[in-house]
């Protein structure tokens, strides 16, 4: 009995620590959840990207691109668009972006992964904070058409989800069903990767519309 009680107390103590311990934070933002992402953060910070683009991609300064909403970043896969810009710089800008030719392919992959990670965090917050009421018909069209949702999901699947979650949770769930934090690398599996791409690129109006449509499936 005593052993059980001790075990329970230890468990409560461990949970309390887990709940109260704040993520490590420094001048380059919060520590990233995986080694690959943390290496990307190191490059992001030590290349001083954060001074112009913002530690969390918000509040861009000096005319720098808003990486949270820039379509080029949204279209990027593993640095295929980000890499060439970083390696060559943008010397024609009013305040030129420096070039970083010493970065390796692996560095670029990690840097791009970290930028996508930040963008997913920020856009997820933006999209789930929105209280806009969507258009049901437009949401249905998006679901079956340009959103590409019906490629993986049936209406029956989504009915189950719609019944399970309230409005706020449903919006969060449709954007990132496996949650915000990636376990390994930058995505957990192909489905998670597709949803992360969705979060990075979906227009706020489309997110509201799909959410409104799913609510009608209850």
């Amino acid at each position: 009995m005593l052993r059980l009680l001790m075990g329970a107390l230890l468990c409560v103590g461990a949970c309390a620590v887990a709940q109260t311990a704040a993520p490590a934070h420094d001048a380059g933002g919060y520590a990233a959840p995986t080694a690959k992402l943390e290496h990307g953060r190191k490059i992001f910070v030590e290349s001083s990207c954060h001074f112009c683009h913002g530690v969390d991609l918000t509040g861009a300064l000096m005319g720098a691109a808003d990486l949270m909403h820039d379509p080029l970043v949204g279209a990027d896969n593993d640095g295929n668009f980000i890499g060439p810009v970083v390696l060559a710089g943008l010397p024609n800008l009013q305040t030129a972006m420096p070039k970083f030719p010493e970065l390796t392919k692996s560095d670029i992959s990690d840097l791009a992964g970290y930028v996508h990670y930040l963008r997913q965090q920020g856009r997820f917050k933006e999209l789930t904070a929105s209280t806009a009421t969507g258009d049901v018909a437009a949401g249905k069209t998006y679901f079956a058409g340009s959103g590409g949702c019906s490629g993986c999901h049936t209406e029956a699947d989504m009915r189950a989800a719609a019944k399970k979650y309230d409005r706020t949770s449903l919006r969060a769930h449709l954007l990132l069903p496996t949650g915000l934090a990636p376990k390994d690398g930058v995505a957990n599996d192909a489905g998670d990767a597709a949803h992360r791409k969705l979060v990075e690129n979906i227009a706020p109006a489309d997110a509201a519309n799909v959410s409104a449509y799913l609510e009608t499936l209850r």
Partner: protein
Amino acid sequence: MPTDRRSFLMMATVAVAGAGGVRDWAQEAPHGALPVLKGPLPMATPRRMAGLNFGVETFSFHDIPQGDPTQLPRILEHMQQAGIPECEIMSGHVEPFANALTGWWVQTRKTPGFTEAREKAREWRLTVPMDYYVNVRKKFEAVGLRIYYYNINFNETFTDAERDRSFEAAKALGAVAISSSTVISEAQRLVPFAEKHKFAVAMHNHNNLVDPDQFATPESFEKALAMSPYFYVTLDTGHFTAGNNDTLAFLKQYHARITNVHLRDRKKDNGPNRPFGFGDTPIKEILLTIRDNKWPVRCYIEYEYGSFRTSVDEVKACMEYCTNVVVA
């Protein structure tokens, strides 16, 4: 007689420096038109080492957001913690709106809501009492710090009234000169204001070599220096090096028209910022040349390489590098 533009400019430079020798910014009192403070001015003791005066561009304190004057005490704290008593303060650290909202970055002018925000900023500038700036100055002076330069980035979105008011603001802050990231065409518009206020404007360079209106080369600076004897240079040594210019040669030629240098280390050919000593900027040679010639060019740290440490820690590291150079 001078036979080319550069020779003519050199003669003009010598003339401006005056019969009494090179203008010594360190010895100049704050501008004569300053609002009167009662009692002696509690001037900061300059961080003077080996004859050099060191300061900091407040942009270095990246953790302090722009457009929020309630953050001013943090700037004072940061300067005290870094042990640097004088600064070039950026307008975004004085005014209740960020630099980006006052039009210097052309890209930012295209963002939604810019026009309205710009108009609000203009209205604020034109109506804020000068006591606002005097109070900022007093906060510095009360703790033994000093604003030496006011960094405001003039551009074509300024009205003449706003240009005029910016000079008044600089004087109220106690600055001896304005330092401005601007363009050659805007410099031409500033001539009558600099002459009306008898107040220096130092042009700050970047390294855009494509746009001929930008300050990025010796030739671009020469155009401005020829416009007015009140025009000077804030030589950003890192950007100048990144633009593949000979920074040391420019310093040697135009030191009499350089108010201050921004010390930062960048790699050539639009390369990145690096910790002091790891880039291509000849920081050591720049400091020793100023020291050995006893030129009154003030040396301002501008921290912009990335680090996980605090901005204060990095400004101190930059200062330590400079100390090791000049006292060796």
